[in-house]
Every structure is written in structure tokens, then in C-alpha cells.
């Protein structure tokens, strides 16, 4: 056969192969999603969101799991975001480029790839046992914070590195200190990218199950953590407490995991509905990240 015809056919074959691979990946996802949606949609009622778990599948809801997840995210964010951005700034702008920094950088990159269950064991050892936080929301939040910390550090550094060196020169040449340069030029210019990285990291943390099970998050919680703010009828009318941080908790993925492993048909419907909620949450976070990145890229082009 003519060489040219072979080449043309090879070209075509590869194109078809490429399309097939793409479609396959998408198709599996669509099937999965449709399947879950069809099974779970009947349970997506207000009661499902406002009820505690129960032995009877039709009465069970995700209230405690959803609230637990929100608490976890808040704590994880409060701990990991300032630490992550701080470490990222230090490594990128302040640290001298020497062997030690190099060593630290490699380790952080590696930490980002450590399986999440290892973080669970670490959390169990440090927060639950050593610091005696018990199986509390605080221990869970700290553990997830450790998990997302390397990712936040890496994305902060990446975002800072994307800023041309000439911007730093411009700032220093005007007599700015390092901190002023970071605070007034580098952070504002990289905030979009940093936020994107943080949201993506957090949306991964939302779905994490293994580390939370390892530190002993419960699967059956029929109460909510104590509210940090309660309104009173008498002076001072508002009561603030962080006691809730030490309450035991559950989270969405754990609740789903629990329901999936039960034999009754009703619970698998509940699990499907829970998955829809969790997926919705993750997709919403990712959407915010995409919007942020898009808006930011339109605004700044070097």
C-alpha cells in the first residue's frame, strides 16, 4: 500500500481513538450522575435537610452531617488559609535560595501527594490523643487543615511566581520594603490565583472521608454542635461560646459512607440523595473558583 494512504489512515485512526477516550470518560461520569440523580432525587425534600439520621430510612436526614461539614470547612479554612499563604509568601519572597529551603520545598511538594489516611493517623496521634481534643470538630478541622495546607502553600507560591520580576523591581526601586511589596503589589495581584487554589483545595477536603473516620468521627449524631452564638432574652442578649468546637461530629461523606454500607433499600436512596448534595457542594465551589479565575485573568494581563 502507498505510504501516504497509510499515513492518512493512521492519522484518522488516532483521531477516532482520541474522541473515543474523551467520550468514554465523559460518558461514565454522566451515567454515574444520572444514575445517582434518578435514585436520590425523590429524597431531596426539605425534611431530608432538616432531619437527623435515623434508624428508619424514610425519616433519616443529613442535618447533622451538613452542619458538621460546614463547621469543618470553617475551621479548616481558618487554620489552613493564613498558615498556607504565610508559608507560601515566606518561601517565595523571603527565604534565601539555599539547600535548606530546597529541602523544605521538596518536602512540601511531597506532602501534597501523601494519602489522606496518613493525615488521619497523624491527626489521631497529635490532636485526638496527645492534645486530648478527643473526637471533636476541632480535631477533625485541624486534621483536614493539615491535609490542605501543602496544596495551599503550593498554589500560593505558584500564584506569586506568575507575577513578573519587574513588578518587584518597580516596587523596590521606589523604596518599598519587602513587606510593602508583598502587601500592596504581590498579594493583590495574585489573590485571584491564590483564592482559586484555596477553593479547589477546600472542595477536595469536603469530600475527604478516610482521615475523619481515622480520627473517629461518629456516624450517628442526633444533635448539633453547640451554636457559637445564642441570643438571650436578658442582658447581654447575646451569648458567645466556642464549646461547640469540642463536640463530636459527623460529616457528609461519612454519613453517605454509613448509608451505603447498610442493607436496607431505603438507605441507598438516602446515600444517593446525600451524594447529590455533596456533589452539588463541590461543583458549586469549583464553579466559584472558575469564575474567580476568569474574572481575574480578564483584569490582569502582563
Amino acid at each position: 500500500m502507498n505510504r501516504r494512504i497509510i499515513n492518512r489512515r493512521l492519522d484518522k485512526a488516532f483521531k477516532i481513538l482520541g474522541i473515543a477516550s474523551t467520550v468514554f470518560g465523559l460518558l461514565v461520569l454522566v451515567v454515574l450522575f444520572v444514575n445517582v440523580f434518578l435514585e436520590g432525587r425523590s429524597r431531596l425534600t426539605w425534611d431530608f435537610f432538616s432531619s437527623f439520621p435515623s434508624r428508619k430510612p424514610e425519616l433519616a436526614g443529613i442535618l447533622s452531617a451538613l452542619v458538621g461539614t460546614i463547621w469543618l470547612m470553617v475551621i479548616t479554612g481558618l487554620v489552613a488559609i493564613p498558615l498556607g499563604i504565610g508559608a507560601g509568601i515566606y518561601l517565595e519572597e523571603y527565604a534565601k535560595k539555599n539547600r535548606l529551603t530546597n529541602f523544605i520545598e521538596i518536602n512540601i511538594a511531597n506532602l501534597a501527594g501523601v494519602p489522606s489516611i496518613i493525615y488521619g493517623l497523624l491527626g489521631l496521634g497529635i490532636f485526638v490523643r496527645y492534645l486530648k481534643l478527643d473526637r471533636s470538630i476541632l480535631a477533625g478541622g485541624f486534621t483536614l487543615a493539615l491535609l490542605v495546607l501543602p496544596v495551599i502553600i503550593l498554589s500560593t507560591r505558584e500564584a506569586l511566581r506568575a507575577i513578573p520580576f519587574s513588578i518587584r523591581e518597580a516596587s523596590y526601586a521606589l523604596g518599598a520594603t519587602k513587606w510593602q511589596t508583598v502587601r500592596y503589589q504581590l498579594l493583590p495581584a495574585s489573590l485571584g490565583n491564590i483564592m482559586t487554589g484555596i477553593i479547589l483545595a477546600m472542595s477536595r477536603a469536603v469530600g475527604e472521608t478516610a482521615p475523619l473516620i481515622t480520627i473517629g468521627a461518629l456516624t450517628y449524631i442526633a444533635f448539633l454542635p453547640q451554636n457559637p452564638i445564642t441570643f438571650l432574652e436578658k442582658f447581654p442578649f447575646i451569648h458567645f461560646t466556642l464549646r461547640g468546637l469540642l463536640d463530636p461530629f459527623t460529616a457528609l461523606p461519612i454519613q453517605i459512607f454509613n448509608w451505603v454500607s447498610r442493607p436496607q433499600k431505603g438507605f441507598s436512596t438516602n446515600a444517593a440523595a446525600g451524594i447529590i448534595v455533596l456533589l452539588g457542594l463541590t461543583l458549586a465551589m469549583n464553579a466559584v473558583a472558575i469564575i474567580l479565575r476568569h474574572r481575574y485573568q480578564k483584569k490582569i494581563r502582563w
Partner: protein
Amino acid sequence: MIRQLNAFYTDKEVLKGINIDILSNSVTAIIGPSGCGKSTFIRSLNRINDLIPGFRITGEVIYRDKNIYDKDVDVDDLRRRIGMVFQKPNPFPKSIYENIAYGLRIYGINEKQKLDEAVESSLKKAALWDEVKDNLNRNALTLSGGQQQRLCIARALATEPDVLLLDEPCSATDPISTAKIEELIYQLKQNYTIVIVTHNMQQAARVSDQAGFFMLGELIEFGKTEDIFKAPKDKRTEDYITGRFG
């Protein structure tokens, strides 16, 4: 005034025993072929090269009777008094107004009236005021290259330096902008000491009072611009100026 200046990147010597007296309220041009160390030289004068890992310097740069490389020198304050404009325009991704106000803000000046005045007078000095006065809130990155470069000059002037370092300020601008910047340099000379690095021989001849010719990290010849261009003493200077190499 520069005494016995040597500069190194890691171990590579890029400046070898430079001695130059830079006169105040005049324009000193630094010319020479690519890689001759002229950028390194000018970047040593406000210590911006300190940012580059592995950069090392020996010798003295005397400014106001003090070696700027002494340990007790406040580098940030030094850089505020020795302004710099870079090869490529590098405005901050902010409004025109904020670009210029920045130098004052970091110095703790935040009163709107003072900032307004500084923005206006700097833009006027940099001959940009008429083009931008109606939209000072426009993002500086939307300006043309030549306008951006004049904005960078205005930004450097806002902190009221007494020395202005220009590192090939016209390498990325079109002829019209270049003419405007040259005119500007001529105007600014009355109040500022200007050092300009340039690739462009005609430009050096047009704007400068003294000129120094660098080659391979050495200062080959230094003197009045007229003398350098009309009657160079060194053969290499002559070859370079007449375009025989470089």
C-alpha cells in the same frame, strides 16, 4: 562618584574596577555593546541588584559623602532618593493614579490633597498629564508602551529623588515616544542628576553631557560627550561609535 567598583554574579566578574565621577544636574550616558556590564553598573547605583541571588560587589559608590554599600545604609530610603526606570515599562496592574501615589503611600503619605498634587505634578513633569488627565482611574496596563514608560518615569519622580537612573528607557518604545522621552530627559536635567544606559549611539550623543564607554566589564573611556563622539582617544571606542562592531 564611583570608586574601584567590581561586581560579580556568583563568581563571574562582570564589572572590573570602574571609576566614574557623575556630575550632578547633568546627564551621564553609558554606552557599550550587549553584555558589557552597563546594566549591571547602573543597577548597582541604587542597589536593586541586591535582589539577584549571587550578586556581589566590592569597591565604593559614594553618594552624598557616603558609600551606599556601607552596612548602616537604609536601602529603602536610598532607593527612594535614587529613582529608577527600567528597560521594559513595568507599571503596576493598578490605576494610573495609584501607580504614582504608591511611592508616597509607602512613605506614609495618604492625604488625598497631597497625593492629588503629586500625581498631577509628576505626570506633568513626565509630559503625560494632557494625555491621561481625564481618566486617571484607568488601568495603567491599558496605556500604550510609550505612555507606560512615561508613567514609570512619573512614578519615579513622585518620590522626589535627586538622582534618576534610566536603564535603556527607550528600548521598547516607538520613535515618537522616544523623542518625547528624550525631550523629557533634557527638561529634567535642570533638577535631577541623570544616568542613562542606552544602546542607541545617537541618543547618547543627543541627550548626554558626559558619556562612558563600557566593554567586557571595563570602562574604556569616559569624558565629555562631545569629546567621546568627535575625538575618541581609544581605538575601541572609535570602532564602536563608528559602527565597526557591536
